[in-house]
């Protein structure tokens, strides 16, 4: 039988050990609590040009009947993109002197232009130069790439084309994301959205290649805004149609360009072989993303009904599937 002193000693040891264990657990919990970030990427925004962005403003401009969507046939992207904007009233309708224009291309992948997975550099050149013709104060080109951003902008040729045309290329960083909630949305709820580079911008132009997509069937002007999502955005693949339609509600650009010069018909969104591409020689400019994508379906040998997100976006008021009712302006360029 243990002596009373030994029992007291054992109890003391038990208490001491218990206290140490409790302190260790408390320390672990404290560290975990300190590291825990319930909000995800920081909601703080780095100020750019002394203005703080509180989210994505409405960049759209008033519509003009008969100048909502243009469709130009041709092989030379610089010529067709320029013509497409001319048919909608010219760049001066969209960009005013002193404007700061944000251009959002698809710079998602570190792949060369030949594959058609990213916005073609020639379209970047055309649009950026047009903005400066309209006496824009500044043009910013940016995207939240899927692969390493520096590699994406370099290998896609977008960075070089943008810089050569006089634009500022902005790489993503954590502080450029702000939690956004779409009123009435079920998916975009306090989700980090890439807004920083667009702080202070007056106009927003989206430029997208026309592609098949393994998940969403097609990737066009509305899907292009997927690049603005931060965090683990691949989670939204589970409701790809829902997220695309919500993005069309969240983002109200001034203009979108849909490049169907070489359409990726299969193996999208990354492709991999020039055999995946078909020369459809068409450039679309539009103030209505839904209409642009609805027309784009035809180049993919699809019908609008094949893309559920179109109907969702139309129902939400983002645009019109019946692009013909918008009286598209058409032109064809002679074979170069």
């Amino acid at each position, binding site marked *: 039988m*243990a002596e009373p002193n*030994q029992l007291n000693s054992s109890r003391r040891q038990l208490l001491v050990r218990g206290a140490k264990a409790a302190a260790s657990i408390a320390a672990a919990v404290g560290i975990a609590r300190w590291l825990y970030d319930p909000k995800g990427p920081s909601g703080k925004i780095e100020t750019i040009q002394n203005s703080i962005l509180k989210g994505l403003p409405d960049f759209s401009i008033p519509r003009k009947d008969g100048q909502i969507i243009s469709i130009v046939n041709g092989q030379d992207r610089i010529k067709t993109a320029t013509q497409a904007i001319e048919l909608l009233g010219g760049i001066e309708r969209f960009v005013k002197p002193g404007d700061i224009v944000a251009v959002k291309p698809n710079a*998602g*992948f570190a*792949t*060369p232009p*030949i*594959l058609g997975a990213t916005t073609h550099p020639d379209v970047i050149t055309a649009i950026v130069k047009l903005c400066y013709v309209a006496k824009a104060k500044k043009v910013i080109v940016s995207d939240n790439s*899927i*692969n390493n951003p520096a590699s994406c902008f370099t*290998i896609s040729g977008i960075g070089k084309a943008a810089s050569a045309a006089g634009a500022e290329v902005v790489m993503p960083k954590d502080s450029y994301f702000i939690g956004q909630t779409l009123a009435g949305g079920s998916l975009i709820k306090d989700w980090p959205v890439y807004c920083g580079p667009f702080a202070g911008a007056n106009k927003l132009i989206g430029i997208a290649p026309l592609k098949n*997509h*393994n*998940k*969403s069937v097609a*990737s066009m002007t509305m899907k292009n805004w997927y690049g603005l999502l931060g965090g683990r955005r*691949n989670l939204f*693949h589970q409701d790809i149609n829902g997220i695309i339609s919500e993005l069309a509600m969240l983002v109200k650009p001034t203009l979108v360009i849909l490049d169907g010069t070489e359409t990726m018909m*299969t*193996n*999208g*969104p*990354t492709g*991999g*072989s*020039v*055999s*995946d591409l078909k020369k459809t020689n068409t450039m679309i400019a539009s103030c209505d993303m839904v209409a642009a994508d609805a027309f784009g379906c035809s180049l993919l040998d699809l019908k609008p009904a094949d893309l559920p997100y179109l109907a969702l976006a139309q129902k939400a008021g983002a645009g019109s599937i019946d692009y013909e009712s918008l009286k598209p302006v058409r032109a064809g360029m002679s074979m170069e």
Partner: protein
Amino acid sequence: MHQNSGRARTFETAIGILILVIMIATAIGIYVISQDYNMSRFGISTAGNDESEGDFTAIGTSETYNYDNLYEKINGKAPMYQETGFVKLDTQRFAAKTNSDLSFELYIYDMNSAKNAFSVYSRQKRPDAVDFNDLGANTFGYLAGNAICISSGKNYIEMIGSAESNELVNGMKEMATNLSAKRPASEKIAELEYFPQGTVAGSWKLQIDNAFGFDGLTDTYSASYKVNGKAVSIFLSKRKDADEAKAVAKNYYDFLITNGAKAVSVDSDILKSAGASIVDFYGAFEIVFPADEFVAGIHEADNKQAAEKAAEVLISRLREING
């Protein structure tokens, strides 16, 4: 007693230290392994070495992607691989020594089995693919413009060039040959030998699930043939046993009928004896039958006679296999 408690404390302390050492060693080991981008296990020299692959040299560092972050490399294509047994992806870029603008990126997908690798290979095969016939046993490959794609054992391999260039294609072909030689594929895809002679070269395809839109048709192989000048596609799927084969064949037939197909007469006595069913599915003929543990048939044939002829040859071949 004091001595005993002292020994007990020492023992407990020793156990505690041992546990901590094991945990730290595990953490270090995980870190070290995760930093291992060693492509040399594929027989490929990496940037920083003096060696290179012929006229091309590795540039940048190799990258590795696992199941959780595969989408960071291939985005919307990731599910196709993830749903087909994907384990990991290793990538490396190469550039021509004499022209850094000429480059290609090598992708090596570990798909866990030859069957899985072949499935993603065949499902993405381009219509204008030019097949390679000299990459070694159990290895399939083709050239499509600026890209070379290979199925070799458990690996699906892509080499994607930055341009359509003979120099680039030759460099990629050389690497493809070297890869095959250094890591020959031992795993065979047995089902391909069940097909009759006369397959259109390179037309084999494997649909792991949901073949022809029917979720009951899994692990379904198909190949193209020409019968009297008419294009025909033969398919077969090995089931667990003859009972399952019968059930799947019936279910597929019912699926076709439910979706608007019309039953048509079977003219061939061989097909009748095999219990084959023929339907006209919006102008294309489908034939399905069980043959021991196989579900087999003809898919989307324009010509009924050609379809029946091909089915007869297939029945004969399967009976030959089953003895």
